[in-house]
């Protein structure tokens, strides 16, 4: 692992993302693929945000010997490298971390491209339908324009036949998505929205072909393909929204394939994939490593960061004989541990199962569009059948006219506006939130967020930044801090990181040693510098402050100086909770931390209901209690211990600094140091929901007017085309209104 010597130079040159702490943990050896003489490796890179990042990473890796291809995908953060010769993959990951980015090996087979075959089919169908619509419309407009028989019969027949030649293959190709879905539904003995769509398209094509061949005046070729075109736009937007969530889940699985270092019987150290760890294996944990499986320490002593697992804010000392839970991070010294469980039996796997269970709960949510579709199908079929029977038996208009009017009903009531109503709004809302640094993973998450009645917050890392901050910088002489920072730069300890955060990059101390649970010492400019607990630095116990996390610094023979640290609140935490209160949405805190810090934070942000020292299971129990009382719950959390609650809550949000598992379980991920995005997301979701409802109301109104006209036989192909494109356009424009910033109170 390469230490960063100059923090200012690391990471994204545009400062769009902070340099990543170079947490090691994954050995890329196991992920290299060999093809002939060519070696290939895929890595997920964190923190690449701008063109400078592309130049830096691609340029940096190209300088390594033998590298042939480097390609960074900025949208997905995936880096592909191909090289010849003996370059070791560690050299590549070390190069990336020396540039200030964190990288994790990534198994592309776990995220196969073929998974988006459906998306590609949709977009190809969309292109074909668009092409056919435009060209047939060209011909149809000519037919419609000749109202008084200016166009001869031969010309009209010719136009219709050319339309047929374009429309029939195009519709058969572009409509496959609907036909196969409708066929599956029919075979299963049910009917979905695709049944009337398929019926309308096929009947319209068949009838129009018959008309064209028998010198008829009215053909619906344009309507049939235009219908497919609009519906495919809706389908594609919807697919895009859903695919995002699936990609996120797949990425988590691929990233979990991290490696561990096993100590062999002969004492040599061997890298292996964590899922191959067996009970009894001896593992080496370097500082910065995450514990891969539950186990026990048999050699060494070190401080562990358990914040992501338990929510505890202060590091905890662990030594020989102590157990280690999977997911906690080693901070100070190398440790040797014995595996007591396999990955499948460890905490993380347990969490993954809970996440899966949560997704099943969420999939039971019935979207407003599904509700509309359930009502829609029987109504349309009944109306269409009634039209046919009415014209055939009551009006005795004959087979041709009766059939034509029935088809007109099917076409005009076809759910173009209905199909666009939800995805158009949700994609605009998602884009809008993205600009505010909020990533939405599923479209229906917006729907679920708009209904909430209660918000559960985690404390460490969610209400607070989960990072210690030096509180008394002004009282401490600058040179003392400078020297302390020289020591701190060599350590992963949160207090050391907090000092570096204040002081920035610079020189490093010599002969530095870290004593877990006590402090660290080293030489700066020939003087012995000590940072640590009161007894380590030799201070009277009486002087130590009780509440704040305090550390002492002693330089040479000078009297020691106290540094105070505190976990800082996220910006606007209090204001955000207050705003929700005004809208009658109650907030509460569920934390794994000790009661004293939880109470303090609760008072600061004005939350009266809080629970401390909870296990993940107790958090779930409290969630279920609230839900049993009829509340719709949003969970905001960042730790592994929050992950099951994030998965089980009605909707969940997590900050960008959260654990990978938590981010993948959450519906929303927000960036930055403020809590305001939670409020913004809620506001936008409410607006989106009201726009969706407006759209449905419009679609319903449209059908109330258009359906009777079609039943009365007043709809010509021209009117059908105008009505369909007009209604789709209005729904889309209404969705676009959401992208305007401004009026809402943000």
């Amino acid at each position, binding site marked *: 692992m390469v230490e960063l010597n100059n923090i200012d130079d690391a990471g994204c040159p545009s400062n769009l993302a902070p340099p990543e702490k170079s947490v090691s943990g994954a050995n890329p050896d196991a992920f290299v693929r060999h093809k002939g003489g060519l070696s290939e490796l895929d890595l997920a890179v964190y923190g690449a945000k701008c*063109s400078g990042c*592309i130049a830096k990473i691609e340029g940096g890796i190209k300088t390594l010997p033998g590298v042939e291809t480097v390609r960074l*995908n900025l*949208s*997905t953060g995936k880096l592909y490298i191909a090289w010849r010769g003996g370059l070791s993959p560690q050299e590549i990951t070390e190069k990336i971390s020396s540039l200030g980015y964190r990288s994790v090996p990534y198994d592309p087979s776990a995220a196969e491209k073929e998974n988006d075959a459906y998306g590609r089919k949709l*977009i190809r169908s969309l292109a074909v339908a668009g*092409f056919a619509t435009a060209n047939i419309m060209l011909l149809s407009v000519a037919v419609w324009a000749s109202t008084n028989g200016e166009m001869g019969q031969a*010309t009209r027949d010719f136009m219709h036949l050319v339309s047929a030649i374009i429309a029939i293959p195009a519709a058969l190709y572009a409509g496959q998505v609907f036909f196969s879905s409708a066929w599956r539904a029919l075979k299963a003995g049910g009917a979905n929205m695709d049944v009337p769509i398929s019926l309308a398209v096929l009947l319209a094509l068949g009838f129009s072909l018959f008309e064209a061949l028998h010198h008829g005046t009215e053909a619906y070729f344009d309507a049939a393909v235009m219908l497919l075109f609009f519906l495919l736009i809706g389908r594609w937007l919807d697919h895009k929204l859903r695919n995002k969530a699936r990609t996120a889940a797949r990425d988590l699985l691929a990233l979990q394939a991290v490696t561990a270092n096993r100590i062999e019987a002969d004492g040599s150290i061997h890298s292996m994939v964590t899922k191959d760890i067996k009970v009894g294996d001896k593992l080496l944990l370097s500082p910065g490593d995450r514990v891969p499986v539950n186990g026990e320490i048999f050699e060494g002593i070190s401080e562990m960061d358990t914040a992501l697992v338990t929510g505890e804010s202060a590091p905890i000392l662990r030594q020989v004989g102590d157990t280690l839970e999977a997911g906690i991070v080693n901070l100070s010294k190398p440790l040797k541990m014995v595996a007591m469980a396999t990955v499948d039996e460890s905490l993380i796997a347990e969490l993954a199962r809970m996440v899966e269970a949560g997704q099943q709960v969420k999939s039971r949510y019935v979207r407003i569009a599904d509700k509309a579709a359930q009502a829609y199908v029987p109504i349309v079929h009944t109306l269409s059948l009634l039209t046919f029977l009415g014209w055939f038996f009551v009006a005795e208009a004959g087979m041709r006219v009766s059939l034509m009017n029935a088809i007109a009903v099917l076409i005009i009531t076809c759910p173009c506006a209905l199909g666009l109503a939800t995805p158009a709004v949700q994609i605009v809302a998602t884009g809008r939130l993205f600009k505010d640094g909020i990533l939405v993973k599923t479209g229906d998450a917006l729907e679920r967020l708009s209904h909430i009645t209660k918000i559960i917050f985690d404390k460490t890392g969610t209400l607070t930044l989960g990072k210690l901050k030096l509180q008394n910088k002004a009282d401490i002489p600058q040179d003392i801090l400078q020297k302390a920072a020289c020591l701190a730069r060599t350590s992963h300890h949160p207090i050391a990181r907090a000092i570096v955060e204040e002081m920035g990059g610079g020189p490093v101390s010599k002969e530095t040693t870290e004593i877990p649970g006590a402090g660290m010492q080293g030489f700066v400019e020939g003087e012995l510098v000590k940072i640590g607990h009161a007894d380590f630095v030799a201070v009277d116990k009486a002087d130590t402050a009780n509440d704040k996390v305090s550390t002492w610094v002693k330089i040479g023979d000078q009297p020691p100086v106290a540094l105070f640290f505190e976990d800082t609140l996220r910006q606007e935490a209090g204001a955000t909770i207050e705003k929700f209160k005004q809208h009658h949405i109650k907030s509460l805190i569920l934390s794994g931390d000790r009661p004293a810090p939880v109470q303090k934070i609760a008072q600061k942000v004005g939350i009266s209901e809080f629970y401390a020292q909870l296990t993940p299971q107790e958090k779930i129990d409290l969630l279920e209690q609230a839900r049993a009382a009829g509340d719709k719950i949003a969970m905001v959390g960042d730790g592994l211990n929050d992950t099951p609650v994030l998965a089980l809550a009605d909707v969940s949000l997590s900050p960008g600094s959260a654990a990978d598992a938590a981010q993948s379980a959450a519906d929303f991920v927000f960036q930055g140091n403020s809590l305001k995005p939670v409020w913004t997301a809620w506001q936008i979701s409410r607006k989106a929901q009201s726009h969706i409802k407006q759209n449905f109301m419009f679609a319903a109104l449209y059908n109330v007017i258009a359906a009777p006209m079609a039943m009365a036989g007043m709809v010509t192909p021209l009117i059908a085309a105008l009505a369909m494109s007009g209604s789709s356009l209005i729904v889309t424009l209404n969705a676009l209104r959401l992208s305007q910033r401004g009026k809402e109170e943000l």
Partner: protein
Amino acid sequence: MINMLLLIPVALLLGGLGIGAFMWTLHSNQYDDLDGAAHRILLDDDLEEMGDDR
């Protein structure tokens, strides 16, 4: 009438070329990294290859 017989196939041909080009871009993965494409245009790595060291 002759105009029409000429223009309709021309219109279809041009449209067909358009859709063919689109299918090709789709097939050659040109939509996989839209964010990256927007940023790559800012890089001047091509200047070195052309021997222009401005």
